[in-house]
């Protein structure tokens, strides 16, 4: 069987799971500096799933597509170290303030520019928004079938793929024609770790902007090794309708943000008395810790 062209959608996100006691400032706002930027966890599950397809169908090629600021190239390198073949960084100030719909539109336009593909694989959701919307919306924009909550690829045939989905109350085996899009759950296998050979091969992989900003000159390297180029795309490259991008292209607007104060205080001491427990539950509900 001919190798598949696979696109993995990935996002660099603040590590909201690592919310320790220093992650919130005294005024109750998020201390972003205390949260490292990471490869969105379920997008790593998606990458692993793509790598497994590549293992079963030799000759398959995996391209990571991410939208974000310049530093998001870090996760493309991370993907290359783990076995992806190339990456595309979609970056432009015009994307700022995009909601899921404007994001999906930009990603879909970029995918149209990237040429033929058989399979798009994305994490189910990103931990900074938890919406799980971008996958299905990209599928809709490209008029592709979608299968969400995927845990494992069971079979790849010419122009068809069979996968197992993990739902709240069980599992489902479904077969879809390709090209198609699937989103992957955290219940899928963890991503393999970096491969030392790949790390050596790609450690100087850069976007054009990163190359221009670099202090060391590796020009000779890039002349001989075109695989070190991480492709950068801007609005100009994706034939986008400006009305559908960024804040303007986003139907949803944030009206208001309230901070949840997670500051540690001196321990409150309670006993079995009803009143104290009632007050505790009330307090936890009001601060949105529970409920």
């Amino acid at each position, binding site marked *: 069987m001919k190798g598949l062209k696979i696109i993995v959608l990935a996002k660099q996100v603040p590590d909201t799971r690592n919310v320790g006691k220093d992650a919130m400032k005294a005024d109750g706002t998020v201390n972003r500096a205390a949260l490292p930027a990471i490869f969105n966890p379920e997008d790593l599950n998606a990458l692993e799933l793509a790598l497994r397809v590549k293992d079963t169908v030799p000759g398959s090629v995996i391209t990571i597509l991410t939208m974000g600021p310049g530093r998001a190239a870090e996760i493309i390198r991370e993907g290359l170290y783990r076995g992806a073949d190339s990456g595309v960084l979609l970056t432009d100030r015009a994307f700022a303030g995009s909601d899921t719909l404007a994001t999906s539109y930009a990603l879909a336009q970029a995918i149209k520019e990237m040429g033929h593909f058989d399979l798009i694989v994305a994490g189910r959701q990103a931990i900074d928004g938890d919406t799980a919307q971008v996958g299905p919306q990209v599928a809709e924009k490209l008029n592709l079938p979608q299968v969400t909550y995927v845990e494992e690829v069971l079979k790849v045939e010419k122009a068809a793929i069979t996968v197992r989905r993990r739902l709240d109350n069980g599992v489902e*085996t479904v077969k879809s024609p390709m090209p198609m899009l699937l989103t992957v759950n955290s219940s899928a296998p963890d991503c393999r770790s970096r491969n030392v050979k790949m790390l050596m091969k790609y450690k100087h992989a850069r976007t054009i902007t990163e190359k221009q900003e670099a202090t060391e000159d590796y020009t000779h390297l890039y002349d001989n090794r075109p695989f070190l180029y991480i492709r950068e795309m801007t609005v100009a490259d994706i034939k986008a309708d400006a009305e559908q991008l960024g804040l303007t292209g986003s*139907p949803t607007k944030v009206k208001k943000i309230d901070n949840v104060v997670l500051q540690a205080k001196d321990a409150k001491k309670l006993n079995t008395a009803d009143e104290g427990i009632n007050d505790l*539950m*009330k307090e936890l*509900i009001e601060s949105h810790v529970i409920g």
Partner: protein
Amino acid sequence: MNNIFVYCEVEEGIVSEVSLELLTKGRSLASQLACQLEAVLIGSGLKGVEKQILPFGVDVLHIADDARLEPYTTLPHAAILNKLFAEEKPQIALMGATPIGRDLGPRVSSALHSGLTADCTSLEIGDHEDKKAGMVYKDLLYQIRPAFGGNIIATIINPDCRPQMATVREGVMKKEKINDSYPGTVKNLEVSKYVSDLDFAVQIIERHTEKKKINIKGASIVVSGGYGVGSKENFKLLYDLAAVLGAEVGASRAAVDAGYAEHDRQIGQTGITVRPKLYIACGISGQVQHRAGMEESAQIISINSDPEAPINSIADYVITGDIAEIIPKMIKYYKLNTK
């Protein structure tokens, strides 16, 4: 026209709980906006199912009944909603934040270019002034949800696009019938006008229900027990509390070694490391090994009969006493204060 629509999930003739909860919320929003509440039911063998739906104050129920529409697949359900919403122009459309709603909602919102907010914890009606544009929007849906790993609460609005779409998790809204003989109308859709053969490209080959995998790492609340819980039977109290709070149950190594809990639930240096928003430690003394797996939790409640238990030093709340007395009270007062 411009009514509130609720997409109802149905399987083997039973409408899901979350759908009935959304109908209840939809009814109160419709009354507030002086519009009608409409529901959409898509499935197979739906004769009589309207009796489960109309009593929630549904004015119009649209039914698409066809053997190919159950079990759920994305494309035909999306095709029906896309066309129906284009015809009926709802101002608000609600669905459950379930694997179905979270698969279907974004697909429909993309096709209609309407805004969707996932996993809302509260829905309210309110106005919005856009000072820059000099516009005042009346009676918008405030879609309120936690974001950023639960560290902030955001209020989202869709000023210009319709329908304003939102998904809500099961158990967030309360369920309340209006009247068993509420006079709603049923409209049967001619399915072939809404779907094409191409919509059935994805086939379900096999499905079976089974118990959920344990997912302590991903849980935002963990109820965890130690040796001090005393027995496997007493551990059931922790499961009760976890079920009410939407939490996962964890355990210390001592509790696992004593056979009170499965190995998969072990938290600590040799088990899982968790950083939930809330960690409720029941009968856990708090040895270093255990603390290594949980001390970065945002808030910690320690319930222990020993007021000097080491874990109390890192807890935000210390409750001294017997868990058999305290946990039922926590459940009671949680329920009293939420609904």
